[in-house]
C-alpha cells in the first residue's frame, strides 16, 4: 500500500476543502477503499476521514413522507431500521443480500453507492484497464467475460456496477445529496453513475471535493411497500456479488397494476432502470404473459459483451420471477436467505395450492 497523509475532518466544509486537493480521497469505513489500496488499484496521497462528521449517521423522516438516509448510516443499521424495513422492504432485502454480516456492520450508505466495480481486470494491476489508466485499453474485451455488462457498455469498458443497494434505490427514484466546493446539490440516483462511453474513468457525476452527505427517498416510494422484492442470482448462496439481480415494486390498483418499478443490477455500469417495462405494466393485469412481455421490454437493448449472452435470458427470467413474487405480496420479514431465488416464498399462504409459478422452472 502506498503511504498517504491522513486528515480527520470535523466539519463538512473542512472535509470538502481538504478533499478538493489533487490526490485526495474520502475514507469512511474503508471496506472497499482499503482493499483497493492494498491491491495498488487506488493510490491516494491523502485520506480525508469523514467518519466523525456530525449528523450524517441518522435516518430522518420528512414531513412530506420522504426519508433521508445519512451518508454514514451503516448498511446493517439501515437494513434493520423498522421504518426502512416496513416502507422500503426491497431496500432491506437488497442490503441483507449483499456482503457479509461483518461488512454490513461497517460499510456506509455513501460507501455502498460509491463502491467500485469488481471487474477482475480492474483489480489486476498487470491488466490494461481504461478505468485505472485512461487510454490503456480494456483487457476484459475478449477475456473472461461471463460476469460483464450486457447493457450500456462501450468498447472502452464492459464492467458492471456491483451494488445491490443501488438497484432498489434506482427503482424507487432515490436522489443523492451532495456537498461540494460549489455548494449543495441533489442528483437523481439514476443519473449519479455514468455509463462508460469513452471516459470509463469517470464513474459518477462527482467533481473533486464533492461529498455525498445523504440519499433521499421521495414520498411516493413507499406506495410500493406491499408488493416489493429484490431477487439476486449468485454463484453461491450467500456472500457473493450478483450475476444478475432485479428490484421490483408494484402499486396495485384493485386487480390491476397501477404502477410498476423495475431496476436491474449487475447488467451495466450503473443500476439499470427498465422504464419501457414499467410503462407496459401500468394498468395491466399481473399475469405470466404480461410479466414475460415486461421482461422482453426490459432487455430489448441488451447485447453480449463477450461470453455472457446467458445473462440476457437470465435477466429476463429474474424479472419475471421478481414480478411474480412481488405480485404475491411482500413477505412480513426478509426471508432467511435474502433475495435468493431458491428461498421458499414465505408470503405464499398455502404451499400446496396452485401458484402462478406452477409449471415454471424452479431454477430460473
Amino acid at each position: 500500500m502506498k503511504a498517504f497523509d491522513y486528515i480527520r475532518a470535523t466539519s463538512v466544509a473542512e472535509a470538502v476543502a481538504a478533499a478538493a486537493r489533487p490526490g485526495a480521497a474520502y475514507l469512511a469505513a474503508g471496506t472497499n477503499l482499503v482493499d483497493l489500496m492494498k491491491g495498488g488499484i487506488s493510490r491516494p496521497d491523502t485520506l480525508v476521514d469523514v467518519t466523525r462528521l456530525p449528523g450524517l449517521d441518522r435516518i430522518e423522516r420528512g414531513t412530506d413522507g420522504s426519508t433521508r438516509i445519512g451518508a454514514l448510516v451503516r448498511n446493517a443499521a439501515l437494513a434493520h431500521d423498522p421504518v426502512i424495513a416496513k416502507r422500503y422492504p426491497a431496500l432491506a432485502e437488497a442490503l441483507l443480500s449483499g456482503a457479509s454480516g461483518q461488512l454490513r456492520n461497517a460499510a456506509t450508505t455513501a460507501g455502498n453507492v460509491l463502491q467500485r466495480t469488481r471487474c477482475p481486470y480492474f483489480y489486476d494491476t498487470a491488466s490494461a484497464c481504461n478505468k485505472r489508466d485512461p487510454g490503456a485499453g480494456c483487457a476484459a474485451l475478449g477475456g473472461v467475460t461471463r460476469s460483464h455488462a450486457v447493457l450500456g457498455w462501450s468498447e472502452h469498458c464492459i464492467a458492471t456496477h456491483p451494488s445491490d443497494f443501488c438497484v432498489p434505490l434506482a427503482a424507487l427514484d432515490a436522489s443523492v445529496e451532495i456537498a461540494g466546493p460549489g455548494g449543495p446539490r441533489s442528483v437523481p440516483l439514476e443519473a449519479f453513475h455514468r455509463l462508460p462511453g469513452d471516459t470509463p474513468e469517470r464513474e459518477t457525476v462527482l467533481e473533486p471535493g464533492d461529498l455525498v452527505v445523504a440519499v433521499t427517498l421521495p414520498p411516493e416510494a413507499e406506495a410500493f411497500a406491499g408488493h416489493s422484492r429484490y431477487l439476486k442470482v449468485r454463484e453461491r448462496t450467500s456472500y457473493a456479488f450478483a450475476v444478475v439481480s432485479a428490484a421490483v415494486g408494484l402499486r396495485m390498483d384493485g386487480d390491476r397494476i397501477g404502477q410498476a418499478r423495475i431496476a436491474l443490477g449487475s447488467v451495466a455500469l450503473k443500476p439499470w432502470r427498465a422504464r419501457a417495462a414499467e410503462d407496459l405494466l401500468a394498468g395491466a393485469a399481473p399475469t405470466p404473459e404480461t410479466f414475460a412481455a415486461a421482461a422482453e421490454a426490459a432487455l430489448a437493448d441488451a447485447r453480449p459483451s463477450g461470453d455472457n449472452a446467458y445473462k440476457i435470458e437470465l435477466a429476463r427470467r429474474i424479472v419475471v420471477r421478481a414480478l411474480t413474487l412481488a405480485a404475491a405480496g411482500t413477505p412480513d420479514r426478509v426471508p432467511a436467505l435474502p433475495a435468493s431465488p431458491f428461498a421458499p416464498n414465505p408470503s405464499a399462504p398455502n404451499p400446496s395450492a396452485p401458484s402462478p409459478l406452477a409449471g415454471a422452472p424452479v431454477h430460473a
Partner: protein
Amino acid sequence: MSFPITLTVNGTRRSVVLEDARVTLLDLLRERLDLTGAKKGCDRGQCGACTILLDGVRVNACLALAVSHDGASITTIEGLAVGEALHPVQAAFLEHDGFQCGFCTPGQILSAVGLIQEGQTGGDPERVREGMSGNLCRCGAYAGITEAVLTAHAALTGPDVLPGRQLAEDAA
C-alpha cells in the same frame, strides 16, 4: 507524521503511537499489542478470520485503519473467557466440534458472538448459516459451527426462541 491513538482492548486502555497511517486494526493487534488471536487469512475482507468486536459489533479488522478508530473499544478472542470460565460460544464450539485446524475459529467465535447480539436469527439454522457466511472454514466444519451457534444462542437467549432447532429435534 505520527498519530497517537488510544483504544480499550479487552477492557484495558492501550495507548500507541502510529508512525504510519497504513496500519490496520488487525496488524496493530497482532504486531504491536501481541494479541495474535485474530488471524490474518486473506487480509482482504473475504475470509472473516480477523473478525473482532469493534464498539460491540463484529467487523473485519483487516479492512479497518487503526488511525480512524481512535477511542474505540475492541474485543478479541483473548478477551472472551473470564479466567478459566469459557464464554458460552467458546464452550459450544468445543461441545460440537466446531473446528478442525482452528485457524478460522477465533473469527468464527467472535462472529457468532456478534451475530447472537444482533438478535436477527431467532435460532433458525438457515438464518444462522446465512449470518455466518462471512466466515470461511477450509476444514469444512460448518455443520458443527452451526450447531455450536444454535446451542450458544439458546444458552444466551433462553430456550423458548429456538423453533428451527425444536423442529429438528422433533424430527429426530
